């Protein structure tokens, strides 16, 4: 019987493939995951979660600072982005921080911080470039905890923050004005945070728990250009101090979001 050339090659390949061999070295245990968190000395990535849990959007993020330096931070965002944010000018959500951990480095003046937040980009102050955040104004309503906070353990600070991005990915920015302080929120307690852009009056309005605490930030920069990177997200961010001379610093936050509302004209 004539064997098809391709078929004979496959069979020959299979025979070669079936040849047994011995391992070069013995195997040794690397990780059996019997302790949490994921070890930063074994694995490059740390914990993440983005799921619906208990009827809320739950996001979990852990990150580590570098151990090669006593300067700077490793800053990482973990976001869930609104698919079509174009017409959003008002955003309201309930934010619940279930747990956090944030440690610093005595030899590093940079401060570790964790945040759960909504972030909105409504306009650009100059000539936007499509896809770039440079010149975009980033507005955040957040629950934040820093490693050097003087607040009692378990308290987060509710803040309204407005910054102008000075890099295409907004890895650097300048505050447009001092942050609005909306008071403290305990771990395990939800706070409803609203962020509103009032273009007519050139100001942002931040509101907590239906108006229990409010604050405004006015601005004078141009707001006529659309953002280079329209953006509305729920998520978290860690900024973790690098530390060469002490324990490796970490930032961890487990937060849930619920009851998201937008201005009526922005609803899909």
């Amino acid at each position, binding site marked *: 019987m004539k064997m098809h050339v391709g078929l004979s090659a496959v069979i020959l390949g299979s025979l070669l493939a079936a040849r047994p061999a011995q391992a070069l070295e013995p195997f040794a*245990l690397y990780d059996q995951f019997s302790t949490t968190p994921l070890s930063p000395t074994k694995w490059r990535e740390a914990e993440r979660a983005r799921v619906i849990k208990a009827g809320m959007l739950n996001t979990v993020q852990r990150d580590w600072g570098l151990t090669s330096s006593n300067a700077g931070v490793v800053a990482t965002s973990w976001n869930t982005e*609104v698919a079509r944010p174009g017409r959003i000018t008002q955003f309201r959500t309930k934010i619940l921080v279930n747990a956090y951990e944030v440690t610093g480095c005595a030899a590093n003046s940079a401060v570790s911080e964790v945040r759960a937040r909504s972030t909105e980009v409504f306009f650009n102050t100059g000539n936007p470039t499509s896809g770039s955040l440079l010149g975009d104004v980033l507005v955040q309503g957040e629950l934040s905890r820093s490693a050097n906070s003087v607040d009692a353990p378990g308290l987060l600070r509710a803040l309204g923050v407005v910054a102008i991005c000075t890099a295409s990915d907004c890895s650097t920015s300048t505050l447009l004005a001092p942050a609005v302080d909306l008071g403290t929120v305990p771990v395990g307690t939800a706070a409803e945070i609203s962020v509103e852009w009032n273009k007519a009056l050139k100001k942002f309005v931040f*509101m907590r728990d239906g108006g229990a605490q409010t*604050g405004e930030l006015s601005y004078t920069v141009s707001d006529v250009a659309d953002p280079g990177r329209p953006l509305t997200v729920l998520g978290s961010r860690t900024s973790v101090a690098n530390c060469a001379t002490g324990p490796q610093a970490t930032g961890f936050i487990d937060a849930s979001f619920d009851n998201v509302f937008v201005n009526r004209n922005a609803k899909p």
Partner: protein
Amino acid sequence: MSKHLLAAAMLVALAPLAHAQESYSPFDNFSASQIDPARWLGSERIRAIKSNALSLMMRDFGDQVSNSGARRFTWSVSFDEPARIKQMRAYLTVKDLAVNSCPGNASAGLVNTRVIGGFFNAGAPLPGNQTNDVIGQVTLTRRSDTADAAGVLRVGGSVFLCGNIDCSTGTSLGSVDLGSTVVGTQVRLSVEWDQATKRFQFTRDTGSPLVVTYAVADGQAPGVPFKSLQLRTEIPNCMAGARQEGMLDAVFDYVQVNASGTP
């Protein structure tokens, strides 16, 4: 005290209530079991230790703008020092999966749970570029066009020569068939690079290793050195009908490497 707080303005308010310019409308109260891809970009992910094992989960969706091609996603945890690792072994369990086809798209859907690495480069490596990197992987795979019964996964090992910077194209250097398993069943899999004999060997459970030999040069480090425990989805784009989904929920445990590769 945070820089934000240090800078905190005295604008707070105890001040008059602000009034919204527009009334608010509900956007999402997350009452569904999954994140709605029509409302949100960024679907489900888990990377965590649960019940003394590594849990990885991912769910993604194809595009609805054409009936051709597929979207591809990976979700990993990667060994911190991959260069020292030549051999990897782990226990893998696929707990759940979803993979489907688009009637108008010839591309099949695929979900893949795997132990994978870039072991060497067969040419002149460029940092950050996978061209000519050689990838070895041992996999649990389910395709949307399989004739297998529901819940059956194919087990295999393969070696691949990357053809471009992100290894989205390339050439197979060989593969082995390690049988099948089913969702919920733990399988021990290993992939080992034996440079001295120019071969990869793949082993399932306590079975005999199967070997793929290669003839390409193997003296250079890969352009993208990595060794990972990884999930992958390939989801066909689909203009008509429901948005196509790819989902994997898997557990990895008791990871071993060559003795000189441990921290």
